[in-house]
């Protein structure tokens, strides 16, 4: 992999020069198509069927019907698969009780949309009359936004029929449209991102993603929401198959304020932030913790990410070293640092002084407290596992089932004072040692921070030993680990892999390895600017690749492939 990164230096110079002018910081001006002909292909998969997550559903509804719409009801729980919720979304369906909730939601959203005048109706039929053409116009327009593609004639006439029936029963045209909207909102074509593949005339025998499906992939990748009318229009015109026009759409979306939400959503997924929901810590042990502090911790890291990667178009790797962040009253108390007047009422920019033990996202509470399995103490194993799996894309195997702990536990002296002492037993047992050697040295070096993120030098009156080794190199403490991660080639390779997987909604497979290595090289040539990566993926043939519908083959997983090389 390193060889590929180095060979990418040739165009690093070109894009670095281009980077001096305006938007081109994100968008190297040279023709992407020329380069993409050189890009390896990916393992094309059949078109996807991905359930909208709660935030995507709400955001799409607000985008289509206006921000004042209230979306009620409970959503089926998300599922994390192979490192991402975005992959889990492609494996789940909807339970019966979930449908019950969608049905309730559809009715309430439709009622609010009609009552609030959010749906402009270009006709006013007499009481008791039903204007089918007018209903078709209204429902066709909203149907296209909700389904993210135009409705087929048969689809639209079925929806109009529902509206006609409801208008008749209620003696109200508006009630008819309301039922029609409700019908659209209940469709799997809205609740799921339904993709289609079509034959690609430019590659005989080959397939590609249908234009509207590609528009959705790009839109959810960059905005984490449905495509807007401009994007749907571009798809309808075939613009997304013309590289220059595709780039224009992508650049428009990157320049939109919605892009910030897209970046937040991506890192929310990559960093496992669904675990913040319902996160609890023991009140007696951690009196500073409450659900508000947990919310603030999540928000702080997301603000730090947006500031570095979007506002300042910075280097992804600097997330592990930057002392620049944002702070408010609750976090000031946790970090024991003074908070400016602005931070007392809200969020204020803040730079940790060099004498503070904080720097990089690992040192923030958003990482340190995010462990829903331990409410009363920190777990070096979980922290080490999180670093391996979420930041380095290195899956840690599950513990073996039939370990006899009795062999390794010192029954006469169960009260080890520090986590390092407690976890020594793992290293002494060959059945455990292999995996715990992957996780524990990382986690133990973070033990100067307790389970909510307080800094400490001692645990149970014993001094904490925060030395560690990463990929064979020794270091001390969180700052040392962060520096090792900042330098590790696995860190940018992992974010490239995750962004690709997030975009296509499936785990990277062996057939994607060449493309991923190529993309990592480009990322390096773009000086690891995250927005450049998103732009490259959004405009890449890799995102548009698709196989015909049909039997799914089990591909060799990318991770396995990578290890075997």
């Amino acid at each position: 992999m390193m060889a590929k990164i180095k060979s990418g230096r040739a165009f690093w110079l070109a894009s670095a020069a281009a980077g001096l002018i305006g938007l081109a910081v994100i968008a190297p001006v040279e023709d992407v198509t020329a380069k993409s002909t050189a890009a390896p292909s990916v393992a094309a998969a059949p078109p996807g069927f991905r359930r909208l997550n709660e935030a995507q559903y709400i955001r799409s509804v607000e985008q289509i019907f206006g921000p004042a719409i209230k979306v009620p009801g409970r959503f089926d729980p998300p599922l994390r698969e192979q490192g991402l919720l975005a992959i889990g979304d492609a494996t789940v369906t909807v339970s019966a009780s979930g449908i019950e909730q969608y049905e309730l939601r559809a009715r309430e959203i439709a009622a609010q949309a009609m009552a609030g005048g959010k749906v402009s109706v270009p006709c006013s039929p007499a009481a008791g009359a039903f204007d089918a053409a007018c209903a078709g116009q209204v429902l066709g327009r909203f149907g296209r936004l909700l389904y993210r593609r135009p409705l087929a004639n048969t689809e639209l006439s079925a929806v109009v029929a529902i509206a006609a029936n409801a208008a008749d029963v209620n003696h109200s045209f508006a009630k008819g449209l309301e039922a029609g909207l409700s019908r659209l909102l209940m469709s799997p074509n809205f609740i799921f991102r339904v993709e289609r593949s079509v034959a690609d005339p430019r590659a005989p025998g080959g397939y590609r993603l249908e234009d509207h499906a590609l528009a959705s992939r790009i839109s959810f990748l960059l905005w984490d929401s449905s495509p807007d009318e401009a994007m749907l229009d571009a798809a309808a015109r075939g613009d997304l198959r013309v590289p220059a026009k595709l780039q224009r759409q992508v650049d428009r979306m990157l320049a939109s304020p919605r892009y910030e939400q897209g970046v937040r959503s991506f890192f929310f997924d990559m960093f496992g932030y669904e675990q913040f929901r319902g996160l609890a810590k023991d009140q007696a042990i951690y009196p500073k913790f409450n659900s508000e502090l947990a919310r603030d911790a999540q928000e702080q890291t997301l603000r730090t990410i947006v500031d570095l990667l979007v506002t300042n178009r910075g280097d992804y790797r600097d997330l592990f070293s930057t002392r620049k962040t944002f702070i408010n009253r609750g976090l000031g108390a946790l970090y024991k640092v003074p908070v400016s007047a602005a931070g007392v009422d809200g969020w204020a920019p803040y730079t940790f002084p060099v004498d503070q033990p904080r720097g990089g996202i690992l040192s923030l509470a958003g990482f340190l407290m995010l462990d829903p399995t331990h409410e009363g103490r920190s777990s070096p194993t979980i922290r080490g596992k999180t670093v391996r799996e979420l930041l380095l894309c290195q899956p840690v195997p599950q513990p073996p089932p039939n370990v006899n702990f009795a062999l390794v536990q010192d029954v006469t002296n169960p009260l080890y004072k520090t986590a390092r002492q407690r976890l020594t037993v793992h290293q002494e047992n060959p059945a455990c040692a292999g995996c715990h050697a992957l996780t524990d040295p990382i986690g133990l070096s973070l033990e100067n921070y307790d389970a909510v993120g307080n800094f400490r030098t001692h645990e149970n009156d014993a001094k904490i030993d925060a030395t560690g080794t990463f990929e064979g190199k020794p270091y001390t403490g969180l700052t040392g680990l962060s520096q090792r991660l900042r330098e590790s080639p696995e860190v940018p390779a992992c974010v490239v892999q995750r962004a690709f997987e997030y975009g296509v909604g499936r785990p990277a497979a062996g057939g994607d390895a060449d493309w991923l290595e190529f993309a990592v090289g480009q990322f390096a040539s773009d000086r690891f600017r995250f927005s450049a990566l998103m732009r490259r993926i959004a405009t890449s043939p890799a995102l548009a690749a698709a196989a015909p519908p049909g039997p799914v083959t089990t591909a060799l997983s990318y991770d396995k492939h990578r290890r075997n090389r």
Partner: protein
Amino acid sequence: MSHWTRRNLLRGMMRGSAVVVGLPLLDLFLDGNGEALASGAPIPTRFGTWFWGCGVNTARWFPSQLGKGYDIKPELAPIAPYRDKVSVFSNFNCILDGKPNLVHWSGVMATLTGAAPLKGGVAGGTSEQPTIDCLVSDHIGAGTRFRSLELACTGQTGVSYSMRAGSTVNPSEVDPVQLYRRLFGAEFQDPNKAEFKPDPAVMLRQSVLSSVKDDRDELLRSLGSADRQRVDQYFTSVRQVEQQLGHLLEKPAPAEACVVGREPGKAELGPTWDVAMRTHDLLGQLAVMALSCNQTRVFNMALSIAGSNLRKAGDPVAFHELTHEEPIDEKLGYQPKSTFFIERSMETFGSMLKMMDGVKEGAGTLLDNSLILATSESNFAKIHSVDNLPIMVAGSAGGKWKAGQHISGNGDPSSRVGLTIQQVLGMPVTSWGDGAMRTTKPISEVMA
């Protein structure tokens, strides 16, 4: 006991006190034998699952004597008052036969689906086959408003051991207030109210759902084969809700035991022990009300996730971690802190039995007219053992199940319990399960 008094009693209960109230079916509605309603319809049989995490201590849980009148070991003490209504099964195993032992997952899925799963672990996983409650609710649940109710006591909706094949769980209700509103909110029709008028708005809603099904064929054409199954599950769910609405359009049959209490007050949810127990009892009371009001025939209660996060307030270590980290006390012969949670789990199951046994129906109780399959994912959680899984079945299915025995499976697959339940409930199955878990041998000793 007058109607009015019972209502008041129940209202008192829903304010938070743990009084268990009997809600007898008036004899007026029963025929001379006390086993059928005067209309000729038999008293329905109900089915439930009750799950607790992290297993048991074999020597302190399983009885030594087989058959009826078995001896009660310390950890089973809370079910002693119901011993004659509870069957205990020992030496029924999850037979892996080369499949991996997915920790805190394989054992429970083997018993509930008849198939050892291929993917999963302490955070859940996928299932090769539907869980037994889905099969049973397809058989006995179609006539009620809800095919089944899923309930979990630690505040996490994803904690559920009810799923069709795949990776989508039937999510749990975790908040008694929300559950109350779903069951007894505006859509609830009191089965004992004289007047009934179908609501045209419900008919419209039904027609919307019916029309959604038109989307199916086009979807199946455009997607890959793995996704087709998910599309079908989506439409199965749509159909279920459509039928649910259909029940709102029919005059409900009278159910004299049906009394609806007030909405419970808002309360904290979470995995600390006392909170979870209180949540269990509130959810359990609502489930009992739903069963006696004919809103459902099937429920699933999960006390916690299998890798249990139940915890004593102020204690840094939760149940699951304790099972692995706590040494066995040499004098006691078990892990005292972990065992605290095993004993409380059994007390909580005892509480569920008490609530169900408190509702009089015909000659017996709601419990007598039910089968409740209670199980955990491991035998001894410390080493994730899936041999000799702790399994109980409470109730007697209205006399079709010979209750109150301790039966040894001699190492047979635990799917035999599920097959027996299905046959006793009148389902036309002669074999159940996959691979080494497949069985054609019901447990004849319990079949009446």
